[in-house]
């Protein structure tokens, strides 16, 4: 009698353990360096991708979301916290967060998927953009912008556009890289670049103003500092009567034309990589993914204000226009 009770109890215990093990949700840490609409959108995109793939929050997966709030020391602590809590995968949004996560999880096999990193090779997250074999436990998506194509786009607007002014913050890694790329691509695009630096949002209007009368077009990349004061750049460009190209379509209303991609879509791409890795693809099999599907959006209202008529060639390659305060999207891709 006692023996049978013991067997039953043991079976129940084993069953409980088995049940607990089976229903142990996947732990995914998602961290970013600072709160920012673009980075927040990437975070949301990742979560939505997993949810759409059938990972129910609380049942199949548990998200440990953290923001370093601009404190680089906290970025390390966040990664260490993830390690202590035994996460199964880390999504690190932005360069410093990714670097901190890689340093903490060095030598382990916990996958680190980065997003919103402009130059993964320059930041030494991976050794090569094309050959993933040396990746170890790291892979991800770059939000590199086709700067050369943007310069060409500006040239297509009018043959009078020879000098392009760039407002940027030299203290932002992504921004510095993109500006360097612009300077390198300028000669072959047949343009000259003039830069104006702003090390904080408060200095952006001054920097933009300094370019008035010296340039034939304004260009701003995905620079967090400048984007926060983008209205002042538009105002400066309109004062100069020249077009302003913004490398982020979500800022179309504050620019003459915008080219780039949506950061929520970027988050979806990152989520896609996460799904691949969760389904068994090794991180050392996935090379750097570059965000595809960059689009051109035109702000006809702003163009009218400076008397600019978009050439047919530019209108043909656009995916959306802002006219009469309303955004019109092209139906057939």
């Amino acid at each position, binding site marked *: 009698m006692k023996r049978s009770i013991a067997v039953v109890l043991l079976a129940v215990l084993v069953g409980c353990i088995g049940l607990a093990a089976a229903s142990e949700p996947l732990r995914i840490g998602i961290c970013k360096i600072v709160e920012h609409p673009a980075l927040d959108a990437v975070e949301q995109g990742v979560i939505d991708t997993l949810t759409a793939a059938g990972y129910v929050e609380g049942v199949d997966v548990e998200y440990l979301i953290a923001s*370093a709030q601009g404190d680089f020391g906290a970025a390390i602590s966040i990664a*260490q*916290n993830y390690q202590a809590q035994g996460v199964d995968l880390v999504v690190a949004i932005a360069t410093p967060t990714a670097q*901190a996560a890689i*340093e903490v999880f060095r030598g382990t096999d916990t996958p680190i998927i980065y997003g919103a990193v402009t130059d993964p090779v320059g930041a*030494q997250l991976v050794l090569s953009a094309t050959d993933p074999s040396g990746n170890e436990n790291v892979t991800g998506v770059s939000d590199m912008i086709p700067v050369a194509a943007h310069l060409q786009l500006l040239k297509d607007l009018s043959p009078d556009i020879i000098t392009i002014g760039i407002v940027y913050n030299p*203290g*932002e890694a992504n921004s510095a*890289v993109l500006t360097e790329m612009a300077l390198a691509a300028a000669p072959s695009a047949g343009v000259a670049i003039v830069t104006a630096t702003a090390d904080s949002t408060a200095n952006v209007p001054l920097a933009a103003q300094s370019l008035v009368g010296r340039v034939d077009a304004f260009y701003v990349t995905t620079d967090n500092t400048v984007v926060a004061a983008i209205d002042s750049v538009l105002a400066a460009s309109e004062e100069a009567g020249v077009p302003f190209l913004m490398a982020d379509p979500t800022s179309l209303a504050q620019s003459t034309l915008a080219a780039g991609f949506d950061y929520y879509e970027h988050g979806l791409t990152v989520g896609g990589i996460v799904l691949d890795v969760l389904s068994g693809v090794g991180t050392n099999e996935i090379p750097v993914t570059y965000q595809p599907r960059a689009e051109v959006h035109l702000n006809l209202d702003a163009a009218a204000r400076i008397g600019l008529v978009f050439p047919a060639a530019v209108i043909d390659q656009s995916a959306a226009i802002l006219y009469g305060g309303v955004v019109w999207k092209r139906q057939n891709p």
Partner: protein
Amino acid sequence: MALLWIHAVEQGLAYGIAALGVFLTYRVLKFPDLTVDGSFVTGAAIASVLLVQYGFNPFAVLLLAFVAGGIAGLITGFLNTRLGITNLLAGVLTMIMLYSINLRIMGRPNLSLLRVATATRVVDAAWSPLGPFAILAFVAILTLGIKLILDGFLRTEIGFALRATGDSESMITAQGVNTKTMKILGLALSNGLVALSGALVAQYSGFADVGMGLGTIVTGLAAVIIGGTLIRSNRVGWMTLSVLLGSLVYRIAVILALRYGYVVGFQASDLKLITSLLVILALVVPYVRERRMRKVSAC
């Protein structure tokens, strides 16, 4: 879980070296020095560039970072004592200058140390029998060594002159001490320590970023004040220990906030709020205890 406490102590002590620097200017010299937000990065910048581009020894770069920080402190000291610019403004001016200088040193806003042999990685490999305690042991030995050297210095004749300059400038001038020299010396030492801390933290984190110094004065002061509240003493040895303790408390607050914040329903964006609340809690407990003791002794 134990791993988290080890990391808290590691970071608490690494940042504690910067807190000792802030202690030297703010408490000893009575000079509120904002240069530290810049000199912290200068140390990180010097260390990173020397490691990545010139393959320097990762322990030697700590010393060179100290020197670089010292130069930054000299600039602030010069602005204040020779050009008559008030202490707060002198520090701010140097900090702003250092932003551009640091960018020049690094050549880019972010320099990765993930592929070089940093001090922490070397120690981790060399002391591998200690396991997860290897880096902690290294940081502890380094920090306590610096603390003891600082304590020793503050008990020398020059050290006393430095302390007296902070306490009563007119009195010590009457004794024949050149307070201008003392201030410059104090600022140089202080920023040297902060830069050393920056170099250590950069190697610990795996990267140097031009923005990583933001808030150094705040966390440094927090450590000094928290420590001063927890250990009340006028003796040098206890004061420097309290500073390190304060830095530890602050880092533990950050880690606790990260680990358990969500339990109370906080979101990721509430990190700084929770950290501050935990620090307030750490300060309130001894304060309440002291008031109770006073009430008891009053009756």
